[in-house]
């Protein structure tokens, strides 16, 4: 993102504003969804789905990951794998609990 002329920048600003609008709408949507009469599992799934979409928009467009160099994508892919490990550790304890009499 280092060699853009002014025309490019104005195009970028339009994209940023669209993403900004989408983030604002999704924020309102996730709050509205939390008042819906659904089960906790459904609520967790819905809230995390909306959060993931919002996070992807921020990372992809605001942080330019959508057209970033491969080196960064590799670093982040590796980080993401370790992050998933992190999130699965609590699940392992749950499996352990299930084995107990």
């Amino acid at each position, binding site marked *: *993102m*280092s060699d*853009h002329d*002014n025309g490019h*920048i104005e195009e*970028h*600003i339009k994209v*940023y*504003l669209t993403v*900004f609008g989408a*983030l*604002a709408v999704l*924020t*309102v949507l*996730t*709050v509205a*969804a*939390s008042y819906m009469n659904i089960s*906790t599992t459904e*609520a*967790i799934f819905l*809230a*995390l789905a*909306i*959060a993931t979409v*919002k*996070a992807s928009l*921020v*990372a992809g467009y*605001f*942080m330019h990951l959508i057209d970033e*160099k*491969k*080196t*960064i994508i590799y*670093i*982040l892919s*590796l*980080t*993401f794998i*370790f*992050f998933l490990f*992190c*999130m699965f*550790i*609590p699940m392992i*304890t*749950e499996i352990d609990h299930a084995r107990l009499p």
Partner: protein
Amino acid sequence: MQIPYTTEERPDTGLNNSKLGIWIFLASEIMLFGGLFSAYVFLRMAAPDGDFAYWGSKLNIPMATFNTLVLITSSMTMLMSWASLKMKDLQKFKMYMGLTLLCATIFLVVKYFEYTGKFHHGIFPSSSTFMGIYFTLTGLHMLHIIGGMIVMGYFWLPMGNKMWESDSERFTNRIEIVGLYWHFVDLVWIFLFPILYLL
């Protein structure tokens, strides 16, 4: 000695060192917050049924929704401050960077009222497991906001942006790097908001 590859690409990585550096730092930040998110899942699964929902319902959703919108706005003004430099307009940069700092300040003020509101009702990190992880996660996030404000504040002040005169490309790059950090802080809040306030 001049720091090499501050703006030009290093042939082997295809990136300038500043960008590679901030992304490696952000990767470590993902693991820092990831560890705490993992702790949240662990604590929630071990908690009695409805315990997290009960304590979570004591939090103020309108205040947090407002703060979410403030942070998203600050990400937008951050991008605009960088875009202003790309268009060679230092005055606009100062305006947008000032707005970003204002948004960050509003976020902290709202957070201050949220925290003190809890303290007045006798709710502390020691009150419950939920409150423990709530204050840890939001407190660490708040420290990141303050850290970002210190760096942004420096670049906003005349002594911070005098590099614009001597090496405008390098200064623009610095702002892009601060921006990447700032968007990451926004990104963390995007997950904190639903898991703490809404679920």
